[in-house]
């Protein structure tokens, strides 16, 4: 069944086919659960004019913030982007466009995109700038706005373990947006801490079934902590 073997050996293979102007959906929340090596590979490739869909845009010098250094990102679709000075500078210069999207709407846009649902109604954002220009419809007396799904040319995902078939499991809150991102890429690439044999992850504990996954690569992770807070 080698047709199901998704493992690639190099980052060049992992991101092969990424071109200027493409849309990349990235998993992660802040710096937690981000595909560090895949982001670094995009920086190495120098791909430009990217639309990146991710809850945040990393920090200066790490995570998706790396792709700002050479101005590779044309547009970010995110819920919160306040963590890096370079982002702010490029936004104010007009070099970078941002589409602020409520966090739950962003997750649902990815989920819907991966599930073949082109759009959905939600109460979130009705009556706010997010709802401007969007179709409004009432259900049971309450107004909702129509939000469109998102799919990506690529999805880049960080999982804890994957088997060679691409079945994935996430660790703790590093799960976050990764499972939805995984479903929404035309090509979904998963970077993992460990690759195991099929069957080693019990079938009922798999978070992302391998059908969504095209490529798996074993990475090594710095796992930088954004805000370390400890109990006294």
């Amino acid at each position, binding site marked *: 069944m080698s047709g199901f073997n998704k493992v690639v050996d190099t980052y060049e293979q992992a991101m092969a086919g990424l071109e200027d102007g493409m849309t990349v959906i990235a998993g992660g*929340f*802040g*710096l*937690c*659960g981000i595909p560090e090596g895949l982001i670094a590979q995009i920086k190495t490739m120098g791909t430009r004019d990217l639309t990146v869909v991710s*809850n945040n845009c990393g920090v200066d010098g790490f995570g998706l913030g790396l792709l700002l250094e050479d101005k590779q990102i044309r547009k970010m679709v*995110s*819920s*919160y*982007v*306040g963590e890096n000075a370079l982002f*702010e500078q490029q*936004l*104010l210069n007009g070099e970078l466009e941002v589409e*602020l999207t*409520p*966090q*739950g*709407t*962003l*997750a*649902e846009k*990815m*989920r819907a995109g991966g599930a073949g649902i082109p759009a959905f109604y*939600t*109460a*979130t*954002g*009705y*009556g*706010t*700038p*997010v709802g401007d220009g969007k179709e409004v419809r009432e259900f049971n007396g309450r107004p909702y706005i129509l939000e469109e799904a998102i799919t990506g040319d690529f999805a880049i995902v960080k999982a*804890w373990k994957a088997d060679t078939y691409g079945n994935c499991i996430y*660790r*703790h*809150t*590093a*799960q*976050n*947006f*990764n*499972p*939805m991102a995984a479903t929404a890429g035309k090509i979904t690439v998963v970077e993992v801490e460990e690759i195991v044999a099929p069957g080693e992850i019990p079938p009922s504990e798999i*978070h992302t079934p391998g059908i969504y996954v095209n490529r798996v690569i074993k990475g090594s992770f710095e*796992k*930088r*902590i*954004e*805000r*370390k*807070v*400890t*109990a006294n």
Partner: protein
Amino acid sequence: MALTREQIAMRVAKEFKDGDYVNLGIGIPTLAANYVPEGIDVMLQSENGLLGMGRYPTEAEVDADMINAGKETVTAITGASIFSSAESFAMIRGGHVDFTVLGAFEVDANGNIASWMIPGKLVKGMGGAMDLVAGAKNIIVTMTHADKHGNSKLLADCTLPLTGVNCITRIITDLAVLEVRDGAFHLTERAPGVSIEEIQAKTAGPLVVPDSVPEMVL
């Protein structure tokens, strides 16, 4: 005397009922977790995908894969569950979270809230706030009654871009507890030693003052 941040948090915590699932925003709302009354169990939801958020970790427990929605390292309590962002917001948007407590720049007499954007200043984003105010059964806003220049934050109509419409029913400020209904703020409690006149002076929107307004019990 106007309440301190900790005292506002103490008053918020008195709203919790045993068995509530609660989402606390960053700032004063988060402090409320420190004052949950004896005999009351609440379970904290963190919108990055954790139900049953615990205390901050010890140095030995710090784990980069274990954070809260403020991106701080945390622990999970026994009996916690961890899930995706879509699942997390299904809980929030589906009305399964009993209580949301969050801060605001402005609230108006129609229950509208503005909390994420000041035109002319850099806009960082709404995060999960729009989902939370659209979805929770019960929302409490905590904020100072007036800004540092003395301008009221309780208005007839919000002036800033909104986070949500017609969704706020209860406000706890450093001066008072108020309910929002029928197009007005209804004063229900005042901070110890704070006069009705001061509250009236600092409430720009329509304010209904009943004959008797008890002092808060903290």
